[in-house]
């Protein structure tokens, strides 16, 4: 956590947090995982698809009628369909488990809110939610997020995925100046 200032809301100090792994070495590991999942299953990695299915599952508990009358959601959770019965949900469960184990092993497991120094904690939560909503909406629009569209398509040479990645970075760089006070 380099220049970040973070507010520790509640911390259990068990051991000193280890620094993050060299980003290039982490990249090699991620590349190996991406290759292996492709080689053995023919499918790539993904993240937003699983989250979306979980959302449909949750929405159906609260408002089954709404899910069943919304065409886009019917294909995930309409009628007798099981929204959580998909490999893409399993990937997300794995990401949560893997992220948790890794953070725990390296002493980085900590209940904190990561935010810039000028932003209050609840404001940061609200902004994170808004950013997530944009990302979730965008990921549905592009039929995949930075992993499902970006990593998979870049490695397998999809034209649309490279266009997507360019747009993704363009979006970030375009807006960065205007929201700098959120972060620094």
């Amino acid at each position: 956590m380099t220049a970040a200032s973070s507010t520790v809301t509640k911390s259990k100090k068990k051991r000193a947090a280890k620094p993050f792994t060299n980003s290039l070495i982490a990249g090699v590991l991620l590349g190996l995982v991406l290759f292996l999942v492709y080689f053995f299953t023919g499918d790539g990695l993904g993240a937003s698809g699983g989250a979306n299915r979980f959302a449909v599952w949750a929405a159906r508990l609260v408002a089954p009628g709404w899910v069943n009358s919304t065409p886009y959601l019917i294909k995930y959770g309409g009628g007798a369909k099981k929204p959580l019965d998909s490999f893409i949900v399993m990937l997300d469960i794995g990401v949560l488990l893997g992220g948790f184990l890794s953070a725990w092993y390296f002493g980085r497991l900590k209940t904190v809110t990561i935010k810039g120094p000028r932003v209050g904690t609840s404001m940061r939560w609200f902004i994170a939610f808004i950013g997530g909503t944009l990302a979730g909406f965008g990921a549905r629009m592009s039929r995949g997020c930075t992993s499902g569209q970006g990593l998979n398509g870049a490695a397998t040479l999809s034209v649309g995925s490279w266009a997507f990645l360019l747009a993704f970075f363009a979006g970030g760089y375009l807006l960065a100046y205007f929201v700098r006070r959120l972060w620094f």
Partner: protein
Amino acid sequence: MAPFDPVELLGKPMGYLIFILFGMGFGVSLEIAGFGVAHKLIGQFYFKDQTVFKTMFTSVLVAMALLFLTIGLGWLDYDRIFVPPTYLWTGILGGLLLGFGIIIGGYCPGTSLASSASGHLDGIFFVAGVMAGGLLFGSVADSFWGFYNSSFMGRFTLPEWLGLPTEVVVAIAIVAGLLLVWGSDMIEKAWKRREGILTDAEVKQDKRVLTGIAVALLAATVAILVIGQPTLADAWNKNTEKQAMLAEGKAFVPPAEVSQAVYDPLINIVLLDVRDERDFNLYHLENAQRIDPDNLAPVMADLLQESEPPVVIVMSNDETRAIEVWKQLVAKNSINAYVMEGGINAWIEEHAEGQFQPIESHPDDTLAWVIPDALGDKWHSAIPHQPHHPAPYEYEIIKLQKKAPTGAGGCG
């Protein structure tokens, strides 16, 4: 040949467990890179911390090199791995929104899961936002459904777009990608130097790691260029099972069985006519499509896309050209194809006896009959007769084949 379908192969619990394990590998990679911390991600856009570029493009290059190396060696079938289909404008719009999402919220969907798993509360709120955004999309998708499904180009790859051989595109991508990673590293080092947080140890380690990665990737690139990518002819030469099928005559479907299959509601039949336009216009079977034997790639892509795996019948005047096309279709075992026994000449003999004058001696694979008018499939005999046997019918030659796994995709 890889890939496999773990759920089909091992059943759901074991197959799903395998996906959980791959997901864990993904989660660990994200966490150790620091992607559970928003500032490690957004630093990219302020020319500070360049972890996003360095990790992401390293991973893409490593995966790309290994994929196309194993594809080149014939261990992995490129046609059956998930290549995200191209919807150009929705992809670009979605990408922009995700870019806004990361710079405002600090994460993207995958990294927000790693952040949540590390206990970071902002990550959990981001994940909640991702779910809300998905449901919001679902509730308004109807109003732009046309746009959402527009600019669809199917499985469209960079080699196809650039008109270059796959191995050349991979080589260019790896060299360009390495330059990008190296450039990002320079930017990051300049920032760290200014902040006074750059240590000699880090400079040394990065240099060593980057050199190692570059050497390995460039070696892989040379290997990919030397090996090349497998052609269908290579695949055919290795496919002893299909070679035996041809030698034993099990690849040839008699015209009567073709008629039976045409009317079978349980079979999705595709009739491919590989003759030239002249012969095709003179006489062809109803619903047969003429294809160019020298340009099979788009035809095969279409056949692999069909939701119901088709039974493909290839036909020429006799059999020679049909067999050549058939060899390519079945070379990778992904398409269930047969040759029509005796070709169009045998069909006419069986269904239109006496209608046309036979040609005494005809060169191989040319029409053996004088067809006076170019009526195509308007000849009465060009429509297969409704057979007497009701479905389901025991076919002698035609076997139904399960859909080859093509990868459902990472966007589910």
